[in-house]
């Protein structure tokens, strides 16, 4: 029997989240691999234009739940809107972008639907009787292949960058209202507003060269030699999350999924192991240099040049070579 794949999109303030088109590409691929049809779902208020934008994809349909109650995201309203519609139309798989918003509510949705939830999928392959799903474990240091043991509906979130938005197949889809009554959705949070983290901040997104420092540097007192390297390269200083959380550098310097996304011509990662949340924020960089003591650190999987050893010896050595040229 032909499978039905749903793709739940994410939007905010009149724009689709960048992960939405990646989720469309992932859903289309899953539909093609399993022999089925993909349909997209969009929730929000006055999202007609966004639905039209999505409908330029090769999809069987775009379902839209458009109601003032869905103006601002809350897990209560999203679960209350999606659960009955999924129950009624009975798709086999529901694909989500793995974002800070979707992970906030999809476990509750899965529980309500008695469905299996597979968070943070990178890829899948034919495992004989069923599919094997690959996802990062141990902060991306390893990949695990996971099998779903129970029959029935599967919800999965697809890691950012795992399946590129450029793989989305264009086409044309019919737009229909999502079954159910989205206006009745009850919020379980009273949203007050949004604040910027770290004040004014530094726009690392326009930097041509970045030297980024990770927990491996060891402490704030060890950062000056890295700053000297950045100065010698004419680069901005960035950092991975643990450095920021420890207060070694200000939050405006954070690179990764909860910080800034950057793509400089040169990215030098110093003492950064390369957790997936960091990689999604920098892997589009032109030339990536990784300096780390652990040769199996995942940062080397995206690097162009790898230097394994003591960063406290290697970093000043590079600065010295640059000074001499």
């Amino acid at each position, binding site marked *: 029997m032909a499978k039905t794949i749903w793709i739940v999109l994410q939007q905010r303030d009149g724009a689709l989240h960048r992960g939405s088109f990646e989720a469309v590409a992932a859903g289309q691929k899953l539909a093609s691999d399993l022999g089925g049809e993909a349909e997209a779902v969009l929730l929000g208020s006055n999202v007609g234009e966004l639905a039209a934008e999505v409908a330029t994809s090769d999809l069987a349909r775009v379902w839209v739940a458009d109601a003032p109650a869905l103006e601002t995201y809350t897990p209560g309203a999203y679960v209350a809107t999606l659960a009955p519609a999924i129950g009624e139309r009975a798709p086999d798989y529901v694909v989500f972008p793995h974002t800070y918003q979707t992970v906030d509510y999809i476990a509750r949705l899965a529980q309500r639907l008695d469905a299996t*939830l597979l968070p943070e999928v990178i890829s899948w392959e034919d495992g004989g009787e069923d599919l094997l799903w690959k996802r*990062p474990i141990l902060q991306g240091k390893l990949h695990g292949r996971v099998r779903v043991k129970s029959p029935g509906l599967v919800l999965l979130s697809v890691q950012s960058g795992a399946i590129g938005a450029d793989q989305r197949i264009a086409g044309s889809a019919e737009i229909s209202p999502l079954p159910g009554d989205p206006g009745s959705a009850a919020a379980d949070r009273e949203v007050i507003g949004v604040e910027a983290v770290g004040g004014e901040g530094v726009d690392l997104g326009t930097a041509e060269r970045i030297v980024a420092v990770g927990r491996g540097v060891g402490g704030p007192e060890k950062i000056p030699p890295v700053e000297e390297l950045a100065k010698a390269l004419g680069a901005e200083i960035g950092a991975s999350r643990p450095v920021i959380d420890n207060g070694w550098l200000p939050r405006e310097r954070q690179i990764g999924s909860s910080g800034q996304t950057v793509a400089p011509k040169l990215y030098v990662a110093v003492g950064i192991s390369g957790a997936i949340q960091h990689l999604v924020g920098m892997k589009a960089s032109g*030339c990536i240099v990784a300096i780390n003591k652990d040769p199996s650190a995942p940062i080397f999987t995206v690097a162009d040049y790898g230097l394994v050893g003591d960063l406290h010896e290697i970093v000043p050595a590079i600065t010295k070579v640059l000074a001499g040229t």
Partner: protein
Amino acid sequence: MKQVPDTEARLRINAQGSWIEEQDLPFVINGSDECALEEALQIAEKTSGEVVVVSLGPERTREALRKAYALGAGRAVHLADPAFGGGDPVSNGRALAAAMAKEGVDLILTGSQSDDLGYGTTASVLAGHLGWPHAWLVMGIEIEEGGQRARVTREMESGQNEIFTIGLPAVLEVQEGINQPRYASLRGIMQAKRKEIFEAALADLGLEPTEVGSAGARLEIVDVAFPESSGAAEMLEGSPEEMAQALVERLKTQARVL
């Protein structure tokens, strides 16, 4: 609270390729869980409350619970029954919810994600079983006067936080960076040695063996592997000086970024 391999530890895959080699591996309290404990201790200090720490895991988990006592927890509960082993967010969330219901707590704080399996969903499942609201990636908690609601700051992407209020009781899943966890005092460490770790067995929680652990799980890890490289990395060899020389040369002549 979960005990996980130290994120700084060098990992090896076991002979079957099914998981990492755990022998000789250092284990610590999960990063965001340690922040949750710190946040709980601060709230308890302000409200004259008590912090109950609940952890599911094998024998070694006692070490993490002992540390929680040293940091100031008032009571530690260990879901040590082997039946709880090999679970996933569905079966672990169910077991933890049963333990929490038995303890009768007013607020549940957890980390957002474990540093090992990283599903990030166990606490949301736990909240669902209790019928409580929840929030993931919490970066700030203020209990409002009267204790009916909490003002929560939640991390969004791209350097923004969302602020909202949520009804209590709730499950708040905190993100690393919400606070700087304290260190245990010598006095705390000494006192912790004498405190009892309470074990909650399957029967105590009114659960069936088929509901928990690997039997109650919907996901099964088939195998693990180091990520495949995109293939491009050239590993430079030699002394730090030789590597530095080779790197600068390549950045100029191959990558042409200098």
